[in-house]
């Protein structure tokens, strides 16, 4: 399975454009830090040195995921990791699109990867943000996040003049900063609203034309509250939406790309995906939260990704006219 995926991407991108014209833009929050956490338990009793087989560049360093992808896919273009916590792999779509638009590259492997490590598990625990039961975004009884692991990838190419009917188009992105707090979102969702409004302006899409929004929707009290306010202000509270984190957990640096892929699948299948685990939508939140998946006419969909440090990103995907 892995091999066929590799060869598919490699053949398609490298053959069509040349390996040097394909960039790599990946998001991750912690890359391979788990190996460092384990290595610290095996420090030399006398010198304190890490075990001889510890790999800094290939595991610890944040860039290691992109270095691996570059090598595995035999690509030779520019490569970078974006690590802005939980907005990382939403933002890779924006950076890659700019690189294509400016002529630096013709295509890009974009994606997000995060695997479980103790830093995030004990870190979120210290903030009292880990739910004891599977997370329930936007539910009255929501009580935090469930940590998940994921890897999600896409090949981003310049859109042809007449895209195929099944094509999924990246129509716009919006990025902003809260400039408010390191680990709490702005209570009114100021930065989130700005990111969504920028994405709408870039895509040339009216707020009422968004047929589905994939919320950041972590399941914490504060995220869902501030996001609901921001979405109501930017799109109107009537927009149908869900957080697929009820199904996947919060995959952190991979969440943006994972949810972009879910949006692409929703557009292709013309299916509006529900949020699972949520049973009683919090009446205090002004949202049109979808509890049952259903067939729907989807032309434009939005995906939100927000991270620590007040880093926000909204993406708009659509089908050709």
């Amino acid at each position: 399975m892995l091999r066929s995926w590799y060869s598919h991407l490699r053949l398609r991108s490298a053959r069509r454009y040349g390996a040097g014209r394909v960039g790599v833009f990946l998001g991750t929050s912690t890359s391979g830090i788990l190996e460092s956490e384990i290595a610290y338990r095996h420090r030399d009793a006398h010198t304190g040195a890490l075990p001889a087989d510890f790999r800094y560049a290939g595991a610890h360093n944040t860039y290691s995921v992109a270095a691996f992808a570059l090598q595995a896919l035999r690509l030779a273009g520019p490569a970078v990791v974006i690590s802005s916590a939980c907005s990382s792999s939403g933002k890779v779509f924006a950076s890659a699109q700019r690189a294509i638009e400016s002529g630096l590259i013709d295509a890009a492997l974009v994606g997000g990867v995060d695997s479980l490590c103790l830093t995030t598990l004990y870190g979120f625990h210290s903030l009292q943000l880990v739910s004891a039961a599977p997370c329930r975004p936007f539910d009255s009884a929501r009580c935090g996040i469930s940590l998940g692991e994921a890897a999600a990838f896409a090949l981003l190419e310049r859109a042809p003049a007449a895209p195929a009917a099944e094509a999924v188009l990246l129509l716009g992105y919006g990025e902003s900063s809260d400039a408010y707090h390191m680990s709490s979102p702005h209570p009114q969702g100021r930065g989130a609203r700005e990111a969504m409004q920028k994405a709408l302006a870039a895509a040339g899409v009216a707020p009422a034309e968004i047929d589905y929004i994939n919320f950041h929707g972590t399941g914490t009290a504060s995220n869902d509250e501030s996001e609901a306010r921001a979405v109501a202000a930017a799109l109107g509270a009537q927009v149908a939406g869900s957080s697929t984190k009820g199904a996947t957990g919060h995959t952190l640096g991979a969440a943006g790309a994972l949810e972009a892929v879910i949006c692409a699948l929703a557009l292709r299948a013309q299916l509006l995906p529900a949020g699972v685990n949520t049973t009683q939508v919090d009446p205090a939140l002004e949202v049109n939260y979808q509890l049952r998946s259903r067939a729907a006419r989807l032309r434009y969909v939005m995906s939100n990704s927000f991270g620590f440090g007040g880093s926000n990103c909204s993406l708009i995907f659509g089908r050709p006219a």
Partner: protein
Amino acid sequence: MSGARLSAYVDGVGLLAPGMTSWTDAVHVLCGEVPWVSAPTVLPAPQSLPAAERRRTGPSVKLTLATGLEATRHAGVEPALLPAVFTSSGGDGQNCHEICAALATTERQISPTRFHNSVHNAAAGYWGIATGATPASTALCAHDASFGAGLLEALTQVAAERTAVLLLAYDSAYPEPINGVRSIPDAFGVALVLAPARGAATLARIEAHLSDAAADSMPGALEGLRRAIPAARSLPLLARLAVPQGGAVVLDYLPHLRLALTVTRCP
């Protein structure tokens, strides 16, 4: 190599490095007037942060606040108005060490502050809190190629969004035991304000493209500095910005790519 040429105007520079306390100070060293004398990097306390936040910050925040504010001051722009590109090979090494050490104990307790300071975009978050900047900010890593990756991201933002951008590249030392496997001897931070059009404060125009030519080195002892710290891979560019005649320069980037730049000074 073929490919697009990306250009921008350099409107301001900020620098904090071993033996160089500011860009204004470093110009005399980089143009050869004054010899470079190695001395530990002096990290100023971040006065622009509220006292409660100031206590929690590490070298990354001190480096980026000092260099970012120097660059925007030279450019004559309000820091709050600029999108920002942060790029670092490793982020805050001391904080990372404290977390790994705590997680190796049976208690496995880390504080909320340790945790939120562990994100690679911590410096970007504090920059927003200190300056009130709400435009886009991003946080990049490309191991030893982090300066080149940040420069490319900033140049594509200038090209695609037609906006001025603040680029901040910074690295600082890891404590032991990580220092034993990844030795970065001292802190180095550089900030550039890059703009799509020439303005009153413009210092130079730069044009960049991907190249497979060999990277330029620095004269004398500065070559050791360039090689020792990923953010110091910017030094050959800074040296061209420091001299009136500008010039062509090739910067180290990824193992398979370099960045060729032409620096044209704007008198």
